[in-house]
């Protein structure tokens, strides 16, 4: 019968419309502007409306999420920043758009290079968020961030991140990527044990 197909299509859209209100009634106030509501709207059995009311609501990002690199530092006993970076340059070499610039630090007396960066720049306009720098860093010194709200007014002055802007404490890293952090710490502890065992045996 002509028209039956159109009616069936309209029935599908009608169901979509109605189910949104049914879900609203079912969840009540918990549906919007609560973490629970956001989580429900992204689960695999979500029904009704999908929309998340950004910026009032935000989707939590998964641990693996990557957005712009930062440099990890350890906090010393007196609060000083001990950069993990040794300025080995692997991140600068692997970077596909070549947005990392590193100046190696030299010992003022001997002129020999010492394992710390004198300067470290990332042009965030060029960075393509591929995550290679974090993936291939042998010292776990550069990691990908979770903060994606970085809009600013001035491209020329704000979009080249220097050492100060890039440095973030290891506690921050542990908070955004707990699983990765735990794995790395375990590996490091194991390595340390092996070294100790090796030195006592030797």
């Amino acid at each position, binding site marked *: 019968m002509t028209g039956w197909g159109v009616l069936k299509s309209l029935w599908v859209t009608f169901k979509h419309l109605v189910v949104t209100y049914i879900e609203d009634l079912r969840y009540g106030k918990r549906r919007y502007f609560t973490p629970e509501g956001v989580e429900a709207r*992204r689960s695999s059995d979500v029904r009704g409306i999908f929309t998340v009311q950004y910026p009032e609501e935000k989707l939590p990002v998964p641990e693996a999420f990557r957005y712009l690199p930062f440099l990890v530092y350890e906090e010393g006993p007196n609060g000083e920043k001990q950069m993990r970076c040794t300025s080995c340059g692997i991140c600068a070499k692997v970077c596909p758009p070549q947005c990392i610039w590193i100046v190696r630090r030299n010992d003022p007396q001997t002129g020999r290079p010492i394992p710390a960066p004198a300067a470290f720049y990332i042009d965030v306009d060029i960075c393509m968020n591929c995550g290679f720098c974090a993936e291939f860093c042998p010292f776990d010194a550069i990691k990908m961030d979770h903060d994606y709200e970085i809009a600013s007014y001035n491209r020329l002055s704000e979009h080249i991140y220097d050492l100060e802007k890039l440095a973030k404490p290891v506690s921050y890293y542990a908070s955004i990527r707990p699983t990765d952090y735990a794995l790395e710490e375990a590996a490091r502890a194991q390595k340390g044990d092996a070294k100790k065992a090796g030195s006592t045996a030797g």
Partner: protein
Amino acid sequence: MSEAVPKIAQIPDLVNLFPNKVQLDTRPGYQGYIVGREHLLDVVRQLRDEYGYDYLSSVTGVDYLPEGKMEVVYHLYKTLGGPALVLKVQTPREEPRVPSLVPLFRGAEFQEREAWDLLGIRFEGHPDLRRILMWEGFAGFPLRKDWREPYFEEEAKPFKSRWPEGFVFRAEDRNPFGDNVQYPPGFDPETWTSPDDEAVYRALKRIGEDDDFHTDTLVVNLGPQHPSTHGVFRMVVSLSEETILDLKPIMGYLHRNHEKIGERNTFLQNMPFTDRLDYLCSMSNNFGYALAVEKLMGIKPPERAEYIRVMMAELTRFLNHIFAIGFLLNDLGAYFTPALYAIEERELILDVFEAVSGSRMMCNYFRFGGVARDVSADILAKVRRLVYDRLPRKVDEMDEFLTHNEIVRERCEGVGVLTAEQAIANSASGPVLRASGVPYDVRRAEPYSIYDRLEFDVAVRYHGDIYDRYLIRLDEMRQSLRILQQVLRDIPDGPIMTGKPQYQVRVPPGEAYGRVEGPKGELGFYVVSNGKPNPWRYHVRAPSFINLTSLADMAIGHKVADVVAILGSIDIVLGEVDR
């Protein structure tokens, strides 16, 4: 013995078949045959007509600067399935000329134009040898090895200025805009008008002189800015009343010379760049490129990685097809209701990609010999819920929603027909080819990864119209779910990477063509290595680019309003068309 086997089932030995015309390519790491330039048409015609090599998949050029040669590489396949027959034609670099294959395969048209545009190889006998991706006022041929781009820094990455004395600079400060743009001699940007536009307009078919009604032909530009064209894409059509007499697609507005960037990059650095080709299907793009380089390196990923790869590729196919259907309906005028239903499901799949790879669209997930991160049990459970429960329901809902809708059928049935012969000759691939009745799927024709042990049917439809191109996407989504269920059932534990992850891979000299059945069609990567850290040649066989060859065949004779729907049914992404 060989008499008993019909010629079409043989893999011919070209050296004996064409003595003095064809030589074996004996360079280490290379395969196939080198054909004498003047014999190319004869050899290919015989291969096509007698041996069943009826599908010209890829045509591309390579600039061998040190040897002073240019080479054109052809990958021929049988639509019956089987491995490639690789032919090469060499020509001196000073005046590169090769006979055009367009008289035999219309599918060579765009690819030869591309090789002319980027490498300056002249294809003799090509009916319409114009620039295709670069603009007409462009000077030089950018893929030649001695051509340098604006903001040129060094021949190959990594650049030496980045470490250890890497004081930051902006490329435009060192080399201000205007100082780096090359124009042809005598060029004035103020007064210049494109000669090619005139040529296009004049080349269009018009109403004949003997028309007694004395009507005029109307030439209309659809695009470049046009909401229905999925991006910046232009179609020039000539109309008789509302009926299309002729159509020419014009592309390249989003061109960024992906291949030149790829040749400056190291092998690994190309991986995130492939994401940006067909930005809806970054996982499939990664897959094709990883296969090509793994072929060169001679490594294979471990079992678990293979399963993860197939899982990601099929999820990508699902999201691409549901998205394509949604946007086809947009093009038909059902504004955004079906598209948003599609986007909802895509959203859930993108959540999986984000949790696995760290990014929703630019996944950058595959590595040579494996994948970047393991898939946790949580994510597998989520995929399982999607694949067993939600997505099958949603395909059925889409089916119920659209398939029998009279408006959809009225607009789609019998419109934009592409016959099987045309589809093969035009090198169409993917759903476009299979909707025309050619059951050709790379996953079956030349299985890669673990597809040889998975159970699925090659979807095929026979009318070749928009409606069948819509239906085949539904079929393929169901088959993808079937594959995903097997993958989830069988996925083993184990490592996800062969060997240690390396940022600088050693790739032995040679050439390789890796191809996958991407959601849009056959996605191929032709990579030439000379043993250095950067590829010597990196070429992408972009399915949506080559599928556009069929656009004119589909559209001629239909109303101008149908063009938009026909284009929607091909399913293109301009990031891949223009590269």
